[in-house]
Each structure stands twice: as structure tokens, then as C-alpha cells.
């Protein structure tokens, strides 16, 4: 799946974009907003084994997943809270047998529905049923532009071919399509071809999303981290394509924040616009939040409403706004631009989620992690640790994990 909700996009936020305008009108609470969108991780089950998977390293087992009725109740509550959009994600959301029913319910209660899928389990009939249920948009992840690289990264044979087929069905059914290309050192050389693939598939939108390094991706950082030369080339290719394809294909570009000067405005600020619901029903400020030890997360199965959890729970309030910030964030003029970056990354790299995200040049750790990225990229150790319920499996020569 993509990290759509967590990424700083390089394009400037339009003055007409979402929360900015809504907040100018003071139509929301003063210290934080009414959440705009929710990422619903229906399951952690997935036929793919991508080494950069954004799911936690400790995956929720199928037996703990919320039931159909529980998800329906959740969606009804979300609308009451003021949520406008729901992204059905995973794991692989199409692994849930009740997906059509859930999309139908989301549509019935008035949520804008987006399906974030690997697409390898889709049939044309199922896709048509999802369209009939009111699905607004389909987002398909791609691991490359051809099967050799793509199937190896996915750890699944024939996955690329199935994705291409599903993308064609999507457009045949006149469903809008976003191609989500997750980029790293071992597929960045295919970027120009991936852009052309998105055009050929008649996609509306392409996300060029550089891997973000927490969870599985952090374990695989040495195999995935791009070189500076690659990043410079990527920016050039994206900018050229954005100009050339204006009005044909919208391209969003997510920069790799190890090579950035400023950290990303992760989740638009902790507990400010978005939240995530895990397969087992935990309400999380972001999909990686469970990696931060020492924070307790409330469940939709608790006695609390989702609105209560959003407004009052300790986990949401811990890093909300700017009051929690230490220096250098505390006195920084950008503190409300990036909200100190990503809490999960701060935790993973410094051991304290309350520190400045080391992606920021003002972090005392920045120089060290930048050098580390450079060293890892140069070492060119390309062996993957594939994502699975067993805690990961190292790639062996020739098996490609498939």
C-alpha cells in the first residue's frame, strides 16, 4: 500500500487545499481539526511480501480482525465525527470477502471511498461489483515497469502481469486510477518507463513515492536507500514529466526525507487531520504509530467512541500541536509548517518519539543519518528481507521470495 497520508508532497499546497481553508474559516476546533480522512487497514494479510511494507513488523493475525458489522459501525461513527474520506487499505484489502459490502456501506453513509490495492486478487467481476457499490477511486501499487524487477520486489511471481490486467479493467469500467509507484535504489532506473506505463494505462494520477524508512523498510534500508545521484535524476525526471503531461497525468512526488533539508509534515501534524484504524481496531495517529513503545492506543472495541478517542486519548494528545516540542523545534519558525516531522522516525532513529525528526538539518542527528544513508547506498547490498507473518524471510539466490 502507499504512504499517502503520511507524506509531504513536493508541490506547494494550494490555498484552496483542505484544512488550510477550513481552518482560516475557524470552522474547526482551535487546537486541532475535525479529521478529514481515515485509513482503514482492513487486514494485514497480503499475497505480496514487499520489503518496504508500511505495516508494522508485528502484524495483526486474521483472527483479531474487526468483523463486517464492526467496520460498518465504525464508518457510521466516522461520518458523525465529520470524516469525509475513507481509504480502504491493508495488507491487501481485497483479501477481505466483505469488501464490496463495506464499500457499499461507506457510500451509503456518505464517505468518499478510495481503494488502495496491490490488485493481484482482483477479478473483473469483483471490480465491477465494487464500482456498482459506489467506489470513487482505485489506487494500484506497482513495483516496477516490467516483471523481472517488479515480481522480485513484490516477492510474488506473475504479480506485475496481474496488476497491469487489473489496471486495464479499472479504466474499462471507467473507474479513476492512480498508479502508485514505490521507488528505491533498485527500481529508480525504471522511473521514466513507469511514467510512460501510467500514461499507457490511462491513469489519472501517478504517485512517485520514495520509500519511507520505518518498520519493514527500516529493516531493508541498506537494500533500498537510493544514492544522491539517483535522487537528483529522479527530481529532474519528475519535473520534466509534470510539465510535459499537464492535464493528462497528475504526478505527485514524495521526496525521500533522508536527503531532505526539512522534515515532512507527517500526517499533516500528529492528530490533526488524519488517523488510522488497524485490522484489530486500534485507533492510531498514523499507521506506524504502534512502533512507538510506551504509548497506549485505544480500540474501537473499547467503551469509548471514536470521537472521544480522537479528542481525549493520551496517544493523540501526546504529540498534538506544538506544546510537547523540545528545542530546536520549540523556538523554530517552521514548527507549525512541519510539526517537528515524523514521530515514528524520531523514535526509530533516536529512541525518543519526542525528539526532532532527524530528517531535519536542525536535528543534532541529521548529519549522522545522512552519512549513514550515503554509506548504505554506496555499499550496494541488494538482498531483501521479505515481509511476512513469520517476522521476515531473507531473499535467497534465485527464489525471489516467490
Amino acid at each position, binding site marked *: 500500500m502507499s504512504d499517502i497520508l503520511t507524506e509531504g508532497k513536493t508541490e506547494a499546497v494550494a490555498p*484552496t487545499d*483542505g484544512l488550510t*481553508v477550513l481552518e482560516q474559516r475557524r*470552522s474547526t476546533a482551535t487546537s486541532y481539526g475535525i479529521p*478529514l480522512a481515515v485509513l482503514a487497514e482492513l487486514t494485514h494479510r497480503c499475497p505480496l511480501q514487499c520489503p518496504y511494507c508500511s505495516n508494522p513488523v508485528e502484524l495483526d493475525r486474521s483472527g483479531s480482525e474487526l468483523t463486517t458489522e464492526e467496520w460498518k459501525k465504525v464508518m457510521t461513527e466516522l461520518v458523525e*465525527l465529520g470524516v*469525509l474520506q475513507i481509504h480502504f487499505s491493508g495488507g491487501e484489502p481485497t483479501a477481505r470477502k466483505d469488501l464490496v459490502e463495506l464499500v457499499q456501506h461507506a457510500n451509503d453513509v456518505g464517505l468518499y471511498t478510495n481503494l488502495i490495492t496491490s490488485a493481484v486478487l482482483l477479478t473483473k467481476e469483483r471490480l465491477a461489483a465494487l464500482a456498482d457499490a459506489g467506489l*470513487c477511486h482505485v489506487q494500484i501499487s506497482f513495483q516496477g515497469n516490467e516483471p523481472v524487477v517488479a515480481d522480485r520486489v513484490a516477492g510474488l511471481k506473475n504479480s506485475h502481469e496481474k496488476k497491469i490486467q487489473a489496471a486495464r479493467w479499472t479504466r474499462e469500467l471507467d473507474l479513476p486510477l492512480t498508479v502508485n509507484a514505490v521507488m528505491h535504489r533498485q527500481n529508480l532506473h525504471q522511473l521514466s518507463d513507469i511514467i510512460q506505463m501510467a500514461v499507457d494505462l490511462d491513469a489519472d494520477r501517478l504517485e512517485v513515492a520514495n520509500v519511507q524508512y520505518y518498520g519493514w523498510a527500516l529493516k531493508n534500508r541498506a537494500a533500498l536507500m537510493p544514492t544522491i545521484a539517483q535522487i537528483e535524476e529522479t527530481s529532474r525526471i519528475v519535473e520534466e514529466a509534470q510539465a510535459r503531461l499537464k492535464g493528462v497525468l*497528475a504526478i505527485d512526488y514524495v521526496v525521500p526525507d533522508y536527503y531532505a533539508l526539512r522534515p515532512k509534515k507527517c500526517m499533516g501534524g500528529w492528530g490533526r487531520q488524519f488517523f488510522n484504524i488497524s485490522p484489530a481496531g486500534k485507533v492510531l495517529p498514523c499507521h506506524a504509530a504502534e512502533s512507538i513503545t510506551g504509548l497506549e492506543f485505544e480500540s474501537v472495541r473499547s467503551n469509548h467512541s471514536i470521537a472521544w478517542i480522537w479528542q481525549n486519548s493520551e496517544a493523540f494528545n501526546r504529540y498534538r500541536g506544538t506544546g510537547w516540542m523540545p528545542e530546536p523545534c520549540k523556538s523554530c519558525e517552521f514548527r507549525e509548517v512541519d510539526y517537528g516531522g515524523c514521530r515514528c522516525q524520531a523514535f526509530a532513529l533516536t529512541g525518543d518519539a519526542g525528539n526532532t525528526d532527524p530528517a531535519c538539518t536542525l536535528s543534532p542527528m541529521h548529519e549522522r543519518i545522512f552519512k549513514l544513508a550515503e554509506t548504505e547506498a554506496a555499499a550496494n547490498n541488494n538482498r531483501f528481507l521479505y515481509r511476512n507473518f513469520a517476522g521476515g524471510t531473507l531473499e535467497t539466490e534465485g527464489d525471489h521470495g516467490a
Partner: protein
Amino acid sequence: MAGRNISVSEASRPKLPRHAKLKFDETRQVWVILAPERVLAPDEIAVEVLQLCDGERSVAEMVDHLAAKYAAPREAILTDVIAMLQDLADKGFLTEVREKTP
């Protein structure tokens, strides 16, 4: 089939594509356009124009309607409406119904 790379003119019959939904948000009491990864908050004039974008009315007809309603010069309205719609089209939030080719 939805069109791409459209150039908005008086003859265009634009409409919102399936992935862009114009909706009044009761909680926040504002109109919003819901699109993939985006929530846009169009101003009142944009909302009025977008409500006319049904894929049947031409831009010329919309401008006639607005010029009459606001007793304003047609040329000025035409320029503003086309600029606004072209901007939305360039961002992928507007499409047009194409005449079937024989």
C-alpha cells in the same frame, strides 16, 4: 469515456469526473470537492459554477445564466469562468463529455 487534456471553451460541456465529488459538508458548514488525497474548499462563486457543470450545459449557456442572474457583463464572466474551469481541468478535477464521433 472521459476526456483528457481538455481545453475549456464556450462550447465545452464540462462535468466533474467520478473521482471528484462536490458536496456540502454539514459538520464544517462549507462546500468541498472530494478527490483522491485531496479536499478542496471552493469559494461560493466556484461552487455556483460547478453546480452548473452537469455535462449537458455548455460553458456559453452557463455564462448566459450567470450574466443574467447577476446583471453583469458577459465578457468578464466568461473570462473568469473559463480561467477557473481550465485550472480545475489542468489539475484533473474536471472532465468533459465528448461528442460521439460517427
